[in-house]
């Protein structure tokens, strides 16, 4: 039984069809990547899988039960969603931001318990943010902020983590750091789904990939199955060079394909 | 006039055979007797009143044929003492256009209300007379006299004054043995009435001591509720004509603290129409006040 699965997902906003007939599966222990060109519908698909948005057609199932029927509090505890460009609106301290991750476990009149604070410590350790726990989150660099947001999710101890382009504006150090955290999280018999633009990172960290194009599922499967020169040329419109070595897989875009229309 | 005299002259010449000097005297006397009523008619014939208090005076002192119009306030149940005398007299809203329509030979108003209408009418050339604010009963007497003069009803004014004086003497006698009581007035917006006002004079004549005047308050001034309560009057006079406050101003007199005060004090409610204007009705007000002592 898959941890999370989506069947015949359709998504429409007014008359515009964003997603058409998508099937997705995520097993425990996996880090799944959603890739595709701009406007392919990756973020929308991710939002449908978190349950934050409802499908127009088809359904999403969590442990083979409809996600729509899952109580909101349970959903909040078992799934963590890192939105694109996540930032704090008020100048909280780092520790305070991470503490927000414990909200799904607190009643409206409750304060943070000792257990809550302990989980926050663990999350800070995992993301190596202990050093700046008292700093104001809005004064941190982009990479540091993403780590803090990730720590917030880890404090909730979810089974599934959804991340929407978490490394888009980060330097290489933080890019690798974030992907490692997601990788480690999946390895503990949980799972993570990530939307990525960087194909090399996707190739290096993900177990399986889903390639989307114009709202449809172009292909899916292992890295080798999806990241082929033909697939990339067809979907992205670029001629690429793929190198597989013991240090990992890297994909380099070489030139644009002339007949491609995005 | 000339037509009169020439006509009479011809008649006398033709019909009566008397000497020229005697003829002249006869004509002259006849003229005077005949035309006297025309001379003596100085009385205004189309009087318009544009305020409540001049309405009262007009309805009281003038002959009905003299009145062209009274203000709409004359029909106000709470405020108009002479309401039954209005009948089907035309009413006006104190606006200049309406008043011109009546072509009045005299317009009467108060000095302290509708004064811009009065000023405008004067500019247009109409005869406008304004009554001052009465601050005592003596003022009322001179007011009545003055009004009698303007409308040509001096005798009527004198008789009203006489009646008032005898009534007041009577009241004083009847209630002489009763003790003096202290009083304070509380009206919408928290206003009280102090010294140098007609109301104050009424209180004095009715055997009351107005604590607001004792405190040094002159005229119409606001008074804090706390100050009122601290003054601890025997009697509280409140204008409570409304069963439900329809504005914050009237809600002032609805404060629960006043209810508690009244439980332990007396509550004197003189109908507004008896005390708001200068006129003989104030003796009725004084009677009510004195009786309640």
């Amino acid at each position, binding site marked *: 039984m898959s941890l999370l699965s989506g069947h015949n997902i359709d998504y429409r906003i007014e008359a515009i069809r964003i997603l058409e007939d998508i099937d997705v599966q995520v097993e425990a222990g996996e880090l799944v990547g959603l890739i595709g060109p701009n406007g392919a519908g990756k973020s929308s698909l991710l939002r449908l899988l978190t349950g934050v948005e409802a499908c127009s057609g088809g359904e999403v199932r969590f442990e083979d039960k409809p996600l729509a029927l899952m109580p909101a509090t349970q959903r909040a505890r078992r799934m963590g969603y890192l939105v694109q460009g996540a930032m704090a609106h008020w100048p909280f301290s780092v520790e305070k931001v991470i503490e927000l991750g414990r909200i799904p476990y607190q009643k409206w009149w409750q304060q943070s318990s000792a257990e809550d604070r302990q989980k926050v410590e663990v999350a800070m350790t995992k993301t190596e943010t202990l050093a700046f726990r008292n700093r104001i989150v809005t004064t941190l660099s982009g990479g540091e902020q993403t780590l803090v947001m990730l720590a917030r999710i880890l404090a909730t101890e979810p089974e599934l983590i959804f991340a929407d382009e978490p490394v888009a504006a980060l330097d290489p150090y933080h890019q690798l750091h974030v992907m490692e955290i997601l990788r480690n999280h999946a390895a503990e018999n949980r799972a993570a789904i990530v939307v990525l633009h960087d194909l090399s990172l996707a190739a290096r960290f993900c177990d399986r990939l889903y390639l989307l194009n114009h709202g449809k599922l172009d292909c899916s499967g292992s890295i080798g199955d999806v990241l082929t020169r033909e697939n990339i040329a067809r979907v992205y419109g670029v001629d690429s060079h793929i190198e597989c070595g013991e240090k990992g897989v890297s994909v380099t875009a070489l030139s644009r394909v002339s007949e491609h229309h995005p | 006039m000339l037509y009169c005299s020439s006509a009479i002259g011809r008649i006398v010449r033709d019909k009566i055979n008397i000497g020229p000097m005697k003829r002249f005297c006869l004509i002259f006397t006849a003229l005077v007797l005949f035309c006297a009523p025309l001379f003596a008619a100085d009385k205004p014939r189309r009087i318009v009143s544009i305020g409540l208090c001049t309405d009262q005076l007009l309805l009281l002192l003038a002959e009905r044929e003299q009145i062209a119009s009274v203000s709409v306030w004359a029909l106000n149940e709470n405020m108009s003492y002479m309401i039954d005398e209005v009948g089907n007299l035309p009413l006006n809203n104190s606006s200049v256009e309406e008043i011109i329509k009546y072509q009045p030979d005299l317009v009467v108003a108060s000095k302290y209300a509708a004064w811009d209408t009065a000023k405008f009418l004067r500019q247009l050339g109409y005869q406008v007379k304004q009554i001052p604010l009465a601050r005592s009963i003596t003022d009322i007497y001179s007011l009545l006299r003055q009004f009698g003069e303007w409308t040509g009803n001096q005798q009527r004014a004198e008789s009203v004054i006489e009646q008032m004086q005898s009534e007041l003497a009577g009241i004083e006698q009847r209630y002489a043995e009763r003790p003096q009581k202290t009083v304070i007035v509380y009206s919408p917006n928290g206003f009280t009435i102090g010294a140098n006002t007609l109301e104050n004079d009424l209180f004095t004549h009715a055997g009351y001591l107005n604590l607001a005047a004792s405190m040094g308050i002159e005229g119409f001034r606001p008074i804090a509720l*706390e100050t009122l*309560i*601290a003054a601890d009057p025997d009697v509280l006079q409140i204008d409570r004509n409304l069963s439900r406050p329809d504005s914050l101003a009237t809600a002032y007199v609805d404060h629960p603290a006043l209810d508690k005060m009244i439980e332990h004090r007396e509550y004197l409610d003189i109908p507004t129409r008896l005390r708001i204007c200068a006129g003989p009705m104030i003796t009725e007000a004084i009677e009510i006040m004195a009786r309640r002592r």
Partner: protein
Amino acid sequence: MNIKAVEPRVLYAILLPILLLVFLLALNVGPVEIDLGKGMQDWFSELTTIESLILFDIRLPRSLLAMFIGATLGLAGAALQGLLRNPLAEPGIIGVSNGAALGAVIVFYYGMAGFAWFLLPLGGLIGALIAVSIILMLVGQSRSIITLILAGIAINSIGGALIALALNFAQSPYAMQEIVFWLLGSVANRSVNELFIALPFMLAGWGMILYCGRFLNALTLGEETAKSMGFEVARMRLVLVLGVTASVGAAVSVAGNIGFVGLVVPHLMRPFVAYEPRRLLLASAVTGAILLLVADIAVQLLSSNGEMKLGVITSLVGAPFFLFLILKSRNVLQ
């Protein structure tokens, strides 16, 4: 930069005694000098004397009202700022208070208030609700402070004009001049009656607002994240808005539009609660109560016959503060 946040225990250990002190001071202020001790004694012995009357029927309701209204305005300001994630949001600026005043004016001057005790504050609630709905519609998803202020100006202007219109056509000859009360606010001459009709709505509103505390914290990370944390954003927003409109509606319906409290108070307290929207709620309530009591004391000391309106003081302090806030955040405003 570290924020000088204060532990809740310490914060309230300071604020609550200040509140008590200011409250007792307010009871001591008035046109007449009275012995508070005697007043209390008389009241407990069930004697109606001058002291007990002044203390319990005049000063106590007035000060209690000032306290509850101050708390309401502070709380509502903090709530709106948390919801709109905008430090310039407050019931007065965005037109909620004027909307409430309009609702109350229509109920009061057209004879509807007497039929049931709750009709007046309900009128305030409905007026406030309409104003807030229009604001939310105009602002939409925009995070821009400018948009919010402009929308607030529009609602405030329309509200003010409609209030004047309603007063113009009212039966009572006093109505028109009372516009000063509705636009500036006052707790003078308010009795236990006013306190009793406003209190239930205010307390209900407070409950609804405090219930949304965690939601406001989650909202710091954005609506999508808040949704993923298990909050039904639309429902929580509705509860919060209802809480604000009920409490502010009731407050304005008995005391008119007292401005700027909801702006100044949360801004003052934010650093002390480490910018946490949830903690800010209660802190703003207590501080709002303190500030409005102080303002009412000032009003009584400055004008011997109580003609000055409370809103004059709050505006004299609040408006320059508002200006200062705008200037300070000129760079941050987008």
